[in-house]
């Protein structure tokens, strides 16, 4: 059950999307998100859907995996759709109905926005290994070092957090089984009882997380880790022609969205 969590999952592959430099992928995601919020009208949203579908097709990530990632967000999506559907002023779709034409349009647009936003983000994490991702992040944030931001430390923490998600999930599973074997009940009872029932999981989980963190720190120190200064990388990142093309296409998409918005096609 807990193993279904897909956060931070990576599907290895050898497609143009996988081969892109992580830096360009992060930049492209930002461009994608800005473009998504600039989008207006059917043409704009249609183009965004098309672009997302195209990227998914090129990266050979099956839509099923994307939808699996959407599942936890379902409640938010439904809630947004309902709110926009019923609370937008305008001309009623049918006389006497609370649903307006504008409401319907806006709720479809909002749902599309959320779905595409998540799909785009998943496309990045599915096709980029956590290592490459944090590497790219570090390089992109590098200029901020000048104003005293500990960029290396932040990205190191990020990659460790990502690395330990599956470990913690496994650990939680194990502790849950052990407490269930002692008759713990996580499924019945009212809210308070259920919250209390989590204690036998949370306490051991915290204890073992601290132990793990301690062990990791000792292991890193014994290998002479001392922060970011003077560190070199095993894998150097290189921009290729592919990256230039991809970034150019991203800029084109953004330009198209701005034009569509201003000329209201």
């Amino acid at each position, binding site marked *: 059950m807990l*193993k279904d969590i897909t956060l931070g999952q990576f599907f290895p592959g050898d497609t143009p999307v996988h081969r892109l430099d992580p830096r360009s992928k992060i930049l492209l995601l930002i461009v994608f998100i800005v473009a998504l919020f600039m989008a207006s009208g059917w043409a704009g949203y249609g183009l965004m859907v098309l672009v997302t579908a195209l990227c998914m097709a090129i990266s050979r990530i099956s839509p099923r995996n994307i939808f699996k990632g959407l599942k936890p967000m379902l409640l938010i999506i439904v809630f947004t759709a309902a709110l926009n559907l019923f609370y937008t002023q305008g001309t009623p779709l049918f006389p006497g109905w609370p649903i307006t034409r504008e409401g319907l349009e806006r709720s479809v647009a909002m749902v599309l926005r959320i779905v595409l936003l998540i799909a785009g983000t998943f496309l990045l994490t599915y096709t980029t290994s956590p290592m490459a991702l944090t590497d790219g992040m570090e390089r992109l944030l590098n200029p901020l070092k000048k104003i005293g931001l500990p960029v290396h430390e932040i990205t190191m923490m990020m990659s460790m957090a990502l690395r330990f998600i599956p470990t913690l999930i496994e650990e939680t599973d*194990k*502790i849950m*089984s*052990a*407490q*269930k*074997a*002692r*008759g*713990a*009940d996580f499924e019945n009872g009212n809210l308070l009882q259920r919250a209390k029932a989590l*204690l*036998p999981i949370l*306490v*051991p989980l915290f*204890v*073992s997380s601290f132990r793990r963190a301690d062990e990791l720190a000792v292991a890193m120190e014994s290998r002479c880790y001392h922060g970011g200064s003077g560190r070199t990388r095993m894998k150097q990142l290189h921009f290729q022609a592919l990256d230039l093309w991809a970034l150019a296409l991203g800029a084109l998409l953004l330009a198209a969205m701005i034009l569509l918005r201003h000329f209201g096609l």
Partner: protein
Amino acid sequence: MSDLRVEALTHVYSAGTPFEKTAIQDISLQIPSGQFVGLLGHTGSGKSTFIQHLNALLKPSSGKVLVDGEDINQDKKTRRAVKNKVGLVFQYPEYQLFEETVFADIAFGPKNMGLGKEEIEQRVREAARFVGVEEELFQRSPLELSGGQKRRVAIAGVIAMRPGILILDEPTAGLDPAGCRQILENICSYRRESGATVIIVSHNMDDAARLTERLIVFNHGTVAMDGTPEQVFSRPEELIKIGLNVPQATSLAMALREKGIPLRGSIYTHAQLMAALKEVGIC
């Protein structure tokens, strides 16, 4: 005291996905009440999956598990009730300790069974005695104890439920020799006094040879060998082929036989080795 029957048990993880994996396949066996059983098998042979079926933590993909003749997977109620009959001690059980005091932690299981206060207290004292945890420790935090003490408190937490079948997954892993000996003695004394069936997963062949009445060897999710220690250790070549060890006495006897010393019989304890050596006139 409970007897256990497993019928054509199969478990498939993540069925219907690309990660599908058959962990155990078509296992049928019967363990009579009071037997001391050792489960052997290398990592990933399906032992852990198997034992988690015996108290309904995992649902079989197909097949049945019967405790005292009753199918434990009938409904939610039986799946819950079986946990009071079949006690399962996981690997490194000390990582599941969570209460503020040793007493409260041992009492967690009996409390979940819905027992009265006096009954709980009696059971906690009894369980603590079995595993050699002194009553002075009752008000201490379990997190302050030493590794071996923590392990014993965790085992007491399961014993306090008075299970008719006690299953332990590598109870001695990571302990020093004295700690190992003590834990095994505790388990034996619980078995002697309660008459419970005990199933122990172990990688230590000498312990398995010395303590158990029956050995079940798992390989690739099926039962590769099943018999008394004498029967199983009389086929040491097969055990080694599966990737397991044999007891020290057995491997020494094998080496001596290879050198041409005709030792007779199945040898898996030091006493047997000594007897066989005497028979051929050495020592």
